[in-house]
């Protein structure tokens, strides 16, 4: 077969496109099996974020007033909610990625299943839930503030690079997790720490007022950058700093490619060791 070989920076897309029917079928399966046998079914995808939003709004606006300094309760709650949507996406997949191959061991070992697509389906699923949660946010915002910032149309420009970043992380953790179960434990201890190093319940500018060096350290956390940019476009109505945005895109794309390369390099070994 004389298939033309795509350049390395496009290879992951070419593979995914070739297996698009499979990815679609598996994503569909994941949703079906998740809601089968539950009475409320897909309504849970809306109820869970709604409950979270209400809890955080009431709890944090009452108990931690200094964090919300200068903001209305609803603005502050919306900010937390956006932060949690983005961070939960990351954390859910960081917890799940190391065990993904173990979950699909029959597929991987006994059929001609292209195991790199598992990362796509897991990530698409998580982003779908996040999308529903974002819909809840939009409804909440329209209900409480009456309007949405115009900059919200820029959201896809943030979602796409963040998606690629997450996908790269999933590939990396998936491959590593196949070799040792420790990765799952490591993630279980790192992610909660990372949660507080991420501007979810506070904003970076509040830290900057206190210590510039800490703020710079926190800037290295790319998940936090995405949260801040998400808040800018979906809540504050600002266009994010273009330079910062381009750096985030470049880093995300690099993580995406590196994760893919790492996974593909060890793919054939993984089948034998898992």
């Amino acid at each position: 077969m004389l298939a033309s070989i795509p350049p390395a920076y496009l290879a992951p897309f070419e593979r995914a496109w070739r297996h698009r029917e499979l990815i679609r079928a598996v994503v569909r399966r994941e949703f079906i099996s998740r809601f089968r046998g539950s009475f409320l079914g897909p309504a849970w995808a809306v109820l869970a974020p709604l409950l979270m939003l209400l809890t955080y709004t009431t709890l944090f606006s009452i108990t931690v007033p200094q964090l919300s300094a200068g903001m209305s309760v609803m603005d502050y709650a919306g900010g937390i909610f956006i932060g949690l949507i983005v961070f939960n996406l990351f954390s859910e997949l960081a917890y799940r990625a190391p065990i993904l191959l173990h979950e699909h061991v029959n597929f991987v070992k006994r059929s001609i299943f292209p195991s790199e697509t598992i990362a796509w389906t897991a990530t698409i699923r998580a982003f779908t839930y996040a999308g529903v949660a974002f819909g809840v946010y939009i409804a909440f915002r329209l209900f409480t503030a009456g309007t949405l910032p115009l900059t919200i149309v820029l959201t896809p420009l943030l979602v796409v690079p963040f998606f690629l970043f997450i996908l790269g992380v999933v590939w990396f953790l998936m491959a590593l997790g196949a070799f040792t179960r420790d990765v799952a434990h490591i993630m279980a201890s790192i992610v909660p720490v990372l949660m507080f190093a991420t501007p979810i319940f506070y904003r970076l500018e509040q830290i900057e007022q206190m210590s510039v060096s800490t703020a710079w350290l926190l800037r290295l956390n790319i998940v936090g950058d995405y949260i801040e940019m998400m808040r800018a476009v979906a809540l504050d109505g600002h266009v994010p700093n273009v330079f910062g945005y381009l750096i985030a895109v470049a880093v995300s794309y690099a993580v995406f490619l590196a994760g893919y390369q790492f996974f593909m390099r060890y793919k054939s070994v993984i089948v034998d060791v898992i």
Partner: protein
Amino acid sequence: MSSEPAIRCSGIGKAFQLYAHQNDQLKQVLFGLWKQFYKEKWVLHDMTFTVGKGERVGIVGRNGAGKTTLLQILCGITAPTKGAFEVNGRIAPILALGSGFDGLLTGRENARIGAAILGLSRKEVDARIDDIAAFADIGPFFEQPMRTYSMGMIARVAFAICAFADADVLIVDEALSVGDEIFQRKCEKYISDFSRRGTILMVSHDLAFLENLCDRALWLENGVVREIGEPARIIADYRAAMVAEEESQATGAA
């Protein structure tokens, strides 16, 4: 291009990495460039053969001879440690039947995913799903979650998917033994029909069936090709070797 073989293996070898501790796997990934943390266990050595388009080749050999590993390599499930191979055309692997199924989903839903794994588009699946159901012939169970199935029913669905995958190369691993008599007949008939239009590489312990079906037989022993050629001759040799071994074991035990 009829001159192009369906399967070509040149010097394929496969070594599994045996680790004394599970953690050595991670060390190998991290520090593998400097030190080797595993022992190699070679299960296939220097396999070289070609299978022509439309040819039917049967593989015989004892348990652990490397038959399944060879088929897994050709299907692309596991990579050879050395050597190269190519398979031209779409493969339908009938390996461990039904091990990739999800017990929560119905037979129909699993069939859709199984067909997608084999490379069928959604339209192709839509057009064939009723044929798959008819071939599997498990009645209303097709709409039930697969955890309620018996082994034989799972095998029926799995075989039915492969039967309608429009494959050029059928790779079969002694998979037919779980079905009942009627279904085994059906599969055997399908395989003989398929042999008129496609290439078959098949492992089986049903030596009479292989002898009937195949153009060539390949005898695998301890990871090397011991003999390859005319099925009647190879299978007779293989049978004789089995009998001889049985006798030597019997005398050894006595």
